[in-house]
């Protein structure tokens, strides 16, 4: 803090967090939340590319019923590594660690998160986690599925040799997640500016806060579980191994006690982003603020009580299944409330269909399908048929990829001018969004039919009747991949050739739009004062800057 204060005096207009200090060391040892956010973003997108390559291997392999590309063992590795990378290294940290780190302190008008060193440490933990996953691949591979189900994962004779490094990797990544969550909880509690009461926070912060609670409460459980699994595999102590008197289903309970709430770690921050996207790009006060805020907390709370629905066919008692089914439905209500409030926000808005907004609308469409198909999975009679089929694969891709990642990508576009100070190509942005939207739905909608008609998941070979669905799905995945590459190209292009971004290109009202793009090193010279972050009537369009300014006659809270 002392260095930033000292340098504060010679701030010039062009001085920002990107050029304030130079050299690789100034990044690797930075305590600046914005730089850490950018480092997270680069790493997570790299991991996303890696996980995506494995996804394409899977899709091309499944072009023919007997498998077109890989051996059985290679296929099993491909879906395991795809799942593990996407869950642990990409979707869980994506929004909180990358976008949250960048945006959250600025939204609070703060100079940084509460514990900047812990923040940097959590980034290093992420990198260590990645290293252990790579070690796992190098030391015999990983073929347990990302869920590490026992007793397969503790059977050294049948599962591949990379299980323990992968478990260590997931354990370390868990701590990275816990530290980020702790940091955000403390930051939101302690560093809110004067005037920003809980119900004046942007909804993204509510979502991040709810997420952080899950991260801090649930992740330790999976940490302990993974440790037990390591000890079990290494020394055979007999917790999960039925041959030693252990219980393999106990592992599933431990695992899902974390991993079901983890689904909400993925989706809640994306919902927070969508609340921002919908409000800002329709210049309309968010509808039902308190209901959206409370629904985030409700989802986080209910999310802890529904893990048993992953074991409807694992031999649980009927009563337990009925109870878990009932509680599972409770999650659908706050989710529905959010969707209806977003729709009501669009009503009588001033809607611009720019790239970020298109992602926001795509989210509503895709989450609509992902959420509604959750009803089949919560219902006992239908879940027995659908469990572990491609229907489930389609359902969780609609939620985790189609919703969580689409929200993430929408957020990247929304805050891209803020992060880089450059505008990306709107035309290419819209084209890519269309490709991603169409590609995604073609890829995964077919998988609903495939699954409910009888194709089990994790199959390297399949009955010929499912080939047509698999071919369509693979074609969709190619379109989807092209969409992602187009995004990568125009975003990278914009860094070098993009137009300079104004401070407030979309007319956002939360505090991050009140500092320059990119933000100065310490965000705000003085703590800004806070108004209603969804009151857009105080802004007016400035043609010269191609951005929004304060309306001359508006009362400016702050300066």
């Amino acid at each position, binding site marked *: 803090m002392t260095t930033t204060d000292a340098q504060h005096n010679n701030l010039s207009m062009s001085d920002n967090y990107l050029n304030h200090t130079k050299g690789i060391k100034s990044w690797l040892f930075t305590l600046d939340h914005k730089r850490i956010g950018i480092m997270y973003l680069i790493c997570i997108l790299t991991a996303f590319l890696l996980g995506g390559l494995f996804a394409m291997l899977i899709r091309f392999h499944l072009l023919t019923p007997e498998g077109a590309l890989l051996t*059985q*063992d290679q296929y*099993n590795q491909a879906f395991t590594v795809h799942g593990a990378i996407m869950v642990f290294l990409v979707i869980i940290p994506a929004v909180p660690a990358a976008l949250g780190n960048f945006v959250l302190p600025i939204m609070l008008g703060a100079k940084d998160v509460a514990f900047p060193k812990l923040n940097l440490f959590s980034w290093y933990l992420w990198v260590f986690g990645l290293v252990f996953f790579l070690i796992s691949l190098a030391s015999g591979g990983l073929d347990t599925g990302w869920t590490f189900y026992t*007793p*397969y994962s503790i059977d050294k*004779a*049948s*599962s591949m040799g990379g299980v323990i490094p992968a478990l260590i990797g997931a354990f370390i990544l868990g701590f990275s997640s816990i530290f980020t969550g702790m940091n955000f909880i403390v930051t939101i509690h302690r560093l809110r500016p004067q005037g920003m009461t809980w119900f004046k926070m942007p909804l993204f912060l509510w979502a991040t806060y709810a997420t952080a609670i899950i991260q801090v409460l649930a992740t330790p459980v999976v940490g302990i579980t993974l440790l037990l699994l390591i000890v079990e595999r290494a020394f055979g102590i007999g917790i999960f191994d039925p041959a030693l008197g252990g219980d*393999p289903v106990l592992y599933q309970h431990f695992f899902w006690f974390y991993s079901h709430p983890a689904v909400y770690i993925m989706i809640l921050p994306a919902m927070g982003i969508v609340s921002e996207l919908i409000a800002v790009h329709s*210049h309309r006060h*968010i*509808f*039902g603020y308190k209901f959206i805020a409370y629904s985030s907390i409700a989802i986080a709370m209910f999310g802890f009580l529904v893990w048993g629905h992953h074991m409807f*066919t694992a031999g649980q008692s*009927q009563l337990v*299944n009925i109870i878990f*089914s*009932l509680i599972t*439905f409770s999650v659908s*209500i706050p989710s529905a409330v959010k969707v*209806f409030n977003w729709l*009501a926000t*669009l*009503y*009588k*808005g*001033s809607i611009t269909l720019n790239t970020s907004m298109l992602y926001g*609308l795509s989210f*509503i*469409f895709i989450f*609509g*399908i992902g959420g*509604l*198909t959750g*009803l*089949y999975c*919560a*219902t*006992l*009679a*239908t*879940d*027995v*048929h659908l*469990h*572990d089929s491609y229907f489930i694969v389609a359902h969780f891709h609609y939620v985790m990829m189609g919703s969580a990642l689409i929200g993430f990508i929408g957020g990247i576009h929304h805050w891209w001018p803020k992060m880089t100070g450059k505008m990306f190509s709107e035309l290419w942005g819209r084209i890519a969004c269309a490709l991603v939207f169409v590609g995604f739905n073609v890829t995964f909608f077919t998988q609903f*039919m495939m699954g*409910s*008609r*009888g194709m*089990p*998941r*994790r199959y390297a*070979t399949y*009955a010929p009747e499912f080939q047509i669905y698999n071919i369509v799905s693979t074609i969709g995945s190619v379109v989807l991949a092209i969409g992602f590459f187009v995004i990568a190209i125009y975003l990278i292009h914009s860094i070098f050739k993009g137009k300079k971004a104004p401070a407030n290109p979309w*007319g956002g009202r939360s505090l991050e739009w009140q500092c320059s793009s990119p933000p100065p090193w310490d965000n705000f010279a003085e703590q800004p004062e806070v108004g209603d972050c969804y009151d*857009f*009537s105080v802004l007016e*369009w400035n043609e010269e800057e191609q951005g*929004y300014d304060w309306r001359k006659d508006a009362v400016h809270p702050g300066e």
Partner: protein
Amino acid sequence: MISIFTNILLATATPVDNGNFWLPRAASTTAGGVDLTFNVITWICYFFFALIVGLMVVFCIKYRRKSPDMVCAGPTHNTALELTWTIIPLLLVVVIFTVGMRGYLNLREAPEGCYEVQVTGQKWSWTFDHPEYGATQVAELTVPVGKPVRLLMTSNDVLHSVWIPDFRVKMDVIPGRYTSLWFEATAVGEYALNCTEYCGKDHSKMLATVHVIPADEFAATMTKLANEYEDMSVGQLPAYAINRLYNRCASCHSLDGSLSTGPTFKGLWDRVKSGQVKFTNGESLSGLIGDATEYGEPENYIRESLLNPQKHIVQGYLGSMPSFQGQLKEKQITAIIEMFKHLRDVTDANGNITVNPDGTPTE
């Protein structure tokens, strides 16, 4: 050409129940309840999805931004509306839950007097024991139509799961405990049974076929199945083993010499007889067979490989073979050994099986 046309004609003439857009054909007494639940949810989903996307599209067209300074002053909250869209979905999910729970209880509560089959999952095959008849089936399960059948299941190694999509039933198969499921098939025919809990390398090949046959033929079929090998002469055993027992080995041992999880059966007997098998501990089989050795007769080595496969692991393989102790009767072990000795007589050069169960050549 003519045969192709007749085939097409036959295919179109016989009404094949392919189910509907979402679900495969329904062939058990409980499937109707599941499908009803599925359809109720589907219509609710169609309605809400149309509502959500419809409103979204209408609003996006109607309220498009006309100028960057357009100020909009719609309502920011409405408690009555919030309660409406909280309570209506709440009531609907209670309905869905109740319908689903009732269907589930039907699925789980096996009626009195079920015909019992014991199921053993083992990487990567299914064994079905019929205690009533003393018959054992591998990768095939024969059951009577119109009679409730209960599967009592356990696993010898890792988790598996039985799924028969056309019956809408599924249950995990867990080592160290029993789980069960029941069904009553409503139509004679053949139905796919899949393993649907990931169990390692050949998970996707851990399949079985459920043969639903007329109830009055069932007893005779099972009795024949139970005793078919007991009355066989040695000359009939190779054909029996390749048709009835080999499917248990097929996921790991090829007949045509191709590489797989375990050594190929092609030329196996010659390698064993001459002792040309090397083990991972450096020993070779030639020192273990012959007079006054561990095995004596080479047949004993094969016997041990079936019952105690971890004792000697062939070089280049991981030793993932499970033990078949207690699962094979003496005469079946003999049949397998005879199969090895006569493998050339029952397969062609490409490893295709060329005999029928009764020993006659296939077409």
